[in-house]
C-alpha cells in the first residue's frame, strides 16, 4: 500500500490545522456562511437535510485494517454507529457535528486518511478497478498511476478553481470495472507489442443531467507522458470550459459543443508545449511509487482443494463461492466481494461493528488489504481459497455473507431524499423493496447478472444511466415519481440507458421492475443470456409492451 512520506504527512496535518482554524473562525463569527462554504467543501463537509455530512477519501478505493478500524471508531464516537460507502469509493458519515469535524480529521490523519479532494470544483480523488493487482485479467496495476495523478493534482494551483468538478478513473484490465468511459478522463492502462506501458485516453464522459460516453482521444499514450497529457487536457478545459452555467460546465459539454476533433487538436497543441518539461515522468519515480503497491508474496501451493470439498458439502458456501469470488492472478487465490447489500438493507451502509469485522478478516486472511468498489461493496483482494470457508463464517457472523455480487439485489443507490439536500425522491427504500421482492437465493440466481442503479435526482449519483435497469426518482406535483431506463452499461462497452416510457409512482415502481425482469426471463434464449444481452438483442419493444400494453 502507499505510505505517506514526510511531505504527505506535513500536507495533511497542515490541512487539518488550517481547517480547524477555519471552523473556529466560523463559529466565532469571523467567517460567514458564504465565505465558509467553499472552505468546508474543500474539506468534504456538506450540509444535508438532517445534519452535516463528512465525506472521507479512500484514494483508489484501497485501505488497510487499521484505517477501516479508524472509520469504525469515527462512526461510533462522532456519528451514529455506521457509515455509507459511496459510488466513488469513498465513505460518508451522515451525522457529524460541525464542532467535532476538526477532531475527526485529526483522528483520520493518524492513519493517513483525510477528506481532501472529495468535494468542490477540483480534481477529485482518482478511482480505480477494485480488483487492482489481483484480477486474473489485469495487465497492470492502475493504482501507481492513480497515486501519481493524486500527487500531481493535490493543491495544483492552476486547477484549484476549475469550472466544475473533475473526475478521473483508471483501469489496468481489458474488462473495465472502473467505468472509465463515464469519467471526465478515463484511462485504460495497457502494454504495446514491445511491452511498453501506455494508456488509452478517454475524455468527456459523465452522467448527471447530460449523460455522455467519453470520446477516445489517444489510443496509446506512453506512460512517461501521462501527467503532461492530463495537464494539457485540464488546461484546455480550464480555459474553454463554460463558467456561465454550472449545468453546462463539465468537460463533457465542452467536448459536445466544440467537437472532439477540435478539442483534441487543442489538447495536442498544449501537450506539445509541455511534454518535454518537468511533467515528463522519470522511470525511477514510476518504479518508486509502483513499489508501494507491490502485491503480497503469494504462496505457490495455496490451493489444497479444501474449498472445493467444503463447497460440495455446504450449498450456502457454494453459492457464495459462485457469486462473490473473483478470479485471481495467483493460483490458489481469489478476491472476495463482501456485499454491503444484505437483503432489505440500505446499499453501501456498514455498521461500526461490521467495519471492525471486515478489518479483522483482512488482517487475518487478506494481507491486511481492503478495497471499496464503486458498486458500494467491499473487497478482500488477496485471499487463499483455502481460507474462504473461514472468511465466509466470519462474514456470516457479521451479517455480510449475502451471496449476491452482480445479482439483481446488488443495487447501487444514492442516499436520496432520506438524507440528501439535492434529492427530489427517495432511493434507498426503493432499493430495499426491490431487494426484498427478489431476495430469495433461488430467484436471484435464476435471474442472473443484472445491474439495477437508482438515483434520487437528476445529478445521477446512483449511476442510473449505466444501469441495465436504471431508476431515476423525480418530483412531480409533490409526489415521488420514478422514470425507468433500460440498456445502460458502465464497462468497456458503455452505453446510456434509454427511457422506456412514462414513469411510475413510489408504490408501483417495484412492480414495474418485476414486470421487466419477468419479461426478460420469458424471452431469454438461454439462462446464460443475461438481461443486458437479451435487451440488446431484442430492443425495448417487448419490455414496453409488458409495461404499457400495445395501445
Amino acid at each position, binding site marked *: 500500500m502507499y505510505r505517506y512520506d514526510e511531505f504527505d504527512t506535513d500536507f495533511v496535518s497542515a490541512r487539518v490545522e488550517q481547517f480547524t482554524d477555519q471552523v473556529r473562525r466560523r463559529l466565532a463569527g469571523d467567517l460567514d456562511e458564504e465565505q465558509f462554504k467553499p472552505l468546508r467543501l474543500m474539506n468534504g463537509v456538506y450540509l444535508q437535510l438532517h445534519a452535516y455530512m463528512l465525506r472521507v477519501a479512500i484514494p483508489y478505493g484501497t485501505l488497510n485494517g487499521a484505517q477501516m478500524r479508524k472509520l469504525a471508531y469515527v462512526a461510533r464516537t462522532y456519528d451514529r454507529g455506521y457509515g455509507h460507502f459511496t459510488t466513488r469509493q469513498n465513505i460518508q458519515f451522515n451525522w457529524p457535528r460541525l464542532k467535532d469535524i476538526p477532531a475527526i480529521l485529526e483522528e483520520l490523519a493518524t492513519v493517513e486518511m483525510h477528506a481532501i479532494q472529495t468535494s468542490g470544483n477540483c480534481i477529485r480523488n482518482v478511482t480505480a478497478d477494485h480488483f487492482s493487482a489481483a484480477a486474473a485479467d489485469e495487465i497492470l496495476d492502475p493504482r501507481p498511476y492513480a497515486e501519481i495523478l493524486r500527487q500531481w493534482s493535490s493543491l495544483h494551483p492552476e486547477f484549484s478553481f476549475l469550472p466544475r468538478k473533475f473526475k478521473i478513473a483508471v483501469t489496468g484490465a481489458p474488462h473495465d470495472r472502473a467505468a472509465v468511459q463515464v469519467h471526465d478522463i478515463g484511462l485504460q492502462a495497457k502494454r504495446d507489442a514491445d511491452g511498453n506501458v501506455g494508456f488509452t485516453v478517454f475524455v468527456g464522459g459523465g452522467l448527471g443531467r447530460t449523460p455522455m460516453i467519453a470520446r477516445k482521444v489517444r489510443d496509446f499514450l506512453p506512460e512517461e507522458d501521462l501527467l503532461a497529457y492530463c495537464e494539457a487536457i485540464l488546461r484546455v478545459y480550464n480555459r474553454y470550459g463554460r463558467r456561465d452555467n454550472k449545468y453546462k460546465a463539465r468537460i463533457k459539454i465542452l467536448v459536445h459543443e466544440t467537437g472532439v476533433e477540435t478539442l483534441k487538436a487543442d489538447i495536442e497543441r498544449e501537450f506539445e508545449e509541455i511534454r518535454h518539461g518537468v511533467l515528463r515522468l522519470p522511470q525511477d519515480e514510476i518504479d518508486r511509487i509502483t513499489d508501494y503497491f507491490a502485491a503480497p508474496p503469494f504462496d505457490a501451493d495455496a490451493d489444497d482443494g479444501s474449498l472445493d470439498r467444503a463447497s460440495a458439502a455446504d450449498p450456502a458456501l457454494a453459492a457464495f463461492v459462485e457469486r462473490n469470488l473473483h478470479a485471481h492472478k495467483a493460483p490458489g487465490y481469489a478476491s472476495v466481494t463482501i456485499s454491503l447489500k444484505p437483503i432489505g438493507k440500505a446499499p453501501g451502509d456498514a455498521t461500526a461493528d461490521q467495519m471492525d469485522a471486515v478489518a479483522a478478516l483482512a488482517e487475518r486472511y487478506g494481507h491486511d488489504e481492503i478495497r471499496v468498489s464503486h458498486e458500494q461493496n467491499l473487497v478482500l483482494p488477496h485471499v487463499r481459497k483455502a481460507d474462504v470457508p473461514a472468511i465466509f463464517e466470519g462474514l456470516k457472523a457479521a451479517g455480510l455473507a449475502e451471496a449476491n455480487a452482480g445479482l439483481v439485489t446488488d443495487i447501487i443507490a444514492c442516499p436520496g431524499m432520506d438524507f440528501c439536500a439535492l434529492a427530489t425522491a427517495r432511493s434507498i427504500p426503493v432499493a430495499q423493496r426491490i431487494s426484498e421482492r427478489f431476495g430469495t437465493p433461488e430467484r436471484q440466481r435464476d435471474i442472473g447478472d443484472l445491474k439495477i442503479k437508482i438515483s434520487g435526482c437528476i445529478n445521477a449519483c446512483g449511476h442510473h444511466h449505466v444501469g441495465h435497469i436504471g431508476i431515476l426518482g423525480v418530483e412531480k406535483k*409533490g409526489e415521488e415519481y420514478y422514470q425507468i431506463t433500460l440498456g445502460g452499461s458502465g464497462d468497456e462497452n458503455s452505453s446510456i440507458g434509454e427511457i422506456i416510457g412514462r414513469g411510475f409512482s413510489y408504490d408501483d415502481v417495484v412492480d414495474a421492475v418485476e414486470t421487466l425482469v419477468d419479461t426478460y426471463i420469458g424471452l431469454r434464449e438461454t439462462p446464460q443470456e443475461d438481461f443486458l444481452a437479451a435487451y440488446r438483442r431484442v430492443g425495448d419493444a417487448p419490455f414496453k409492451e409488458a409495461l404499457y400494453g400495445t395501445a
Partner: protein
Amino acid sequence: MKALTANRLIDGEVVWLGRSGQWVEMLQSAWGLETPEAEAEALAIGAQAVADRLLVDPYLIDLRRTEDGIEAVRFRERIRAKGPTTRPDLGKQARRETSAA
C-alpha cells in the same frame, strides 16, 4: 400557514422558529405564520440568528393542519421534520419527547 426553518450552525440540527421566538427542535412547537406580517417578523428574527451565528440559511416552508397538529406540505420537509424514512431509529422520530433548542 408557514414556518421558518434552518439548520443549526454548530451541529447541523434541523430547527424551526418557535412560538415564543426561540428555536425549537420539533416541528410541533413551531410558530405557525398566518400573515405576511408574521412571516416578515420571522424572517427578521432568522436574519438576526444568522448574524448571531446560530443558524445557516433560514427559509419559509408551507404547513398544513392535521388531526394531531401540523405538518409540512412538502414531503422533503416532512422527512426533515422526522428523520430518514428508512431509519426510524435515527433523527427526531427516534426521540421519546420533544426538547427545546
